[in-house]
């Protein structure tokens, strides 16, 4: 939809991109919430594989973008996994001096790490398929987000677009008078960045004030108001929501029947 609000990650025009942003956000939230109560590694592993396959199929993201999107979640998950594997008490699996690995540590750590990946893949799918402007419009229409908040965020978004340019200009303007280091290069100290950040802050606050006045002069905050281009919310969106919840419930139930599913008790066993 809007190229201005899409990044290299965006898979606009894909199946998932045509779904209602608020519904997608709500599903992301519900699944993440459900994961909070799961502490075995098998259930999140299955959920992750199902989610990865579905999102890959419905967004057609390039493999590279998908892999890149995983980096922060894998790094975070790995950290959690190692901490748990090495520090959680329980049945010792392997020991070398002060380092010991427990069965419980591997299991809980693996569960938490895979949980991170599940939330991660859903977040990737959401970001890659959702236009920021449409999301704000949809939240305004379908989640009762106030018009002032909605348009303030959109205006802030525009300011954000211009900030890198502004930052670069400020850094250059400051560099002109900076005392050079002995090798003739510009200083890169923390205080130089702090000064530039302060200038950026002042310039941005001014601009924010002017934009706020512009928005007010356009009548933002009057009621009643209408919405020109409604973000669609139709039966396909409800079908998607029902399917996702059914699959989630199904996997949890199956995992319970097969004896894999573990809740909070896993932490204290």
């Amino acid at each position, binding site marked *: 939809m809007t190229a201005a609000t899409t990044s290299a990650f965006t898979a606009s025009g894909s199946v998932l991109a045509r779904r209602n942003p608020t519904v997608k956000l709500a599903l992301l939230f519900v699944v993440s919430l459900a994961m909070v109560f799961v502490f075995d590694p098998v259930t999140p592993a299955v959920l992750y594989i199902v989610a990865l396959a579905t999102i890959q199929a419905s967004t057609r993201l390039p493999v590279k973008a998908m892999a890149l999107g995983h980096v922060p979640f894998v790094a975070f998950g790995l950290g959690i996994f190692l901490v748990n594997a090495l520090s959680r008490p329980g049945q010792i699996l392997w020991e070398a001096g002060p380092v010991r690995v427990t069965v419980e540590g591997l299991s809980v750590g693996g569960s938490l790490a895979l949980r991170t990946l599940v939330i991660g893949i859903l977040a990737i799918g959401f970001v890659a398929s959702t236009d920021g402007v449409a999301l704000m419009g949809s939240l305004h229409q379908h989640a009762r987000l106030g018009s002032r908040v909605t348009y303030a965020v959109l205006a802030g978004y525009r300011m954000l677009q*211009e900030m890198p340019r502004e930052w670069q200009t400020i850094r*250059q303007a400051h560099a002109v008078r900076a005392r050079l280091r002995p090798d003739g290069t510009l200083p890169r100290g923390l205080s130089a960045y702090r000064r530039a950040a302060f200038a950026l802050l002042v310039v941005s606050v001014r601009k924010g004030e002017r934009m706020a006045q512009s928005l007010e002069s356009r009548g933002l905050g009057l009621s009643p108001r209408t919405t020109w281009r409604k973000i669609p919310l139709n039966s396909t969106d409800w079908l998607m929501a029902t399917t996702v919840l059914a699959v989630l419930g199904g996997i949890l139930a199956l995992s319970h029947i097969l004896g894999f599913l573990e809740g909070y008790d896993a932490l204290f066993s």
Partner: protein
Amino acid sequence: MPAEPALQLTDVSVEFPRRDSAVLRGVTLRLDPGEHLIVFGASGSGKSTLLQAITGVVPHTVLSTLTGSVSVNGTSTIDASVVELSRHIGVLSQDPSSGVCLPDVEQELALPLENRAVPPEQISARIDHALAAVGAAGLRQRQTDRLSGGEGQRVALAASLIAEPALLLLDEPTSMLDPAGLTAVRQAIDAATAAFGPSVVLVEHRLDDYAGPAGIAGLPERAVVLGDDGRVLADGDTAAVLAGSAGQLNARGCWLPLETELLAVTGRPGGLATPEVRAALRALALPREGDDLQAPRGLGMPNDDGASPAPRIGDTVLTARNVCVSRGAELKKRRRPRRTAETAPAILKHVNFELRRGEITALLGANGTGKTSLLLTLAGLLPPAEGSVAGARPGMVFQNPEHQFVAHSVVDEVRHGLPGDAGRLVKTVLDQHRLIHLADQSPFRLSGGEKRRLSVAAMLAHDRPSLLADEPTFGLDRRDTIATAAAFRQAAAAGRAIFFSSHDLRTVATLADRAVVVAEHTVIADGAIFDVLRDPDVLMRAGLRLPPLLDWLLAEFDSAPDIRRVLNGLDAAVSGATTAPQLSGSRV
């Protein structure tokens, strides 16, 4: 019986808590539906406050006391909030980047209609109508961050009129635009106000540019002059008001239509077309007694023998050899190559020139031709993609002075980057640039002219042989423009090379010895200023348009010093604008 007034101010006074005197005093003003009004006044005379009192920002948003009453289309501003008042008022402010708020042009235009609960099925047609009225039908599918200044300002104008307010406020709508953008926005304002028929209140600095070739007839038909104490000094037919207040407004540093300025200086009406005015200008061109003894030569005036380069011009301090300017060159140097680096095209190629001590050189060219990038490259802030820049490290003054500020007080700002024992130098610099009384103020709280003075002063405190400046007079009133030019002249007289970009050809003609013109991705002209300005081919290729005064001067006088004397004589009529002694010597 006349309809309800679009605007009615009755005995309005406004005070701000931290100022001892009122900004507006007893202002009474009535504007009928469809009537157009222009407000004149020097900087600080309360023009902005008047507009804020109309929108309700004063007293609702800004802490202030308003007495008397303001009503817009029958709604009292005391009883209604700013947002409620927006039903009757459209506002176009000076900065297109903050006047357009949303990512898409369509959304920007739909927003005012959505907010006024216009049925969705009517919105699309009204967007088309509003864009067509400002001559911007082709911009409908565009994103707002890709718009040029002139385009952005036309979109903002369409957005302020689309909901058909009774009153349109224009707050210096063209002051941040280049000549091309200015013409487009000027036409858009005429066409759109004709199409939508609101009453108009205009505040504008660059009146000569705004009025265009029509002169005073190109301005709103009614004018109000605000005095320095915030009272209405004159109210009536624009031509009559301007004639009555010409001398005073000109002395206060307002930009005026040329005809009015010439009336103020020569005392004769009718403008350039009139023989008496021409005769008076010719008289200004005559060399005066004592000219040779006074500082002109040292302060940047060419010699009376004109054509030959003045002896004060010294050795070369900065050389550009076959320089290729590209924004991508910078990215390539970073460790992680960006995808854009491979394809970033050259902005300028084969740039060769030298800057010499004591010489003031102007950099001319249309917007987007790479003038800023060239200055950054010369300053060593942007590595050249090819070629080399040789010479000692130059100083540079940026277009927006705020970008340069690093300290929390004026005195620290000047001290920044200097050796520890520079106390005396700092004081001298503050004195020279009339900043000493502001020494403890925050740089960000100064007026526009003071900010510019500070940014120039802080740079000149450094011992650099050359000073680069990017649009140093942009957005300044006339008095501050003249003061900035005087500071540059002083710096050149002290042996620095000055290289500045500008769209204001009159200032360029008053100040520069030489001009470098960029167009078609390279330097297309480099020579003595009046030789360049006389070359119609260069002007056309670079999209430069001579203002009428300069056009006439170039046709009338052969020698550069004659032209310079006329321009300086006109500037001298602006009081308090001069720091250099030569101007007081040539006062008319």
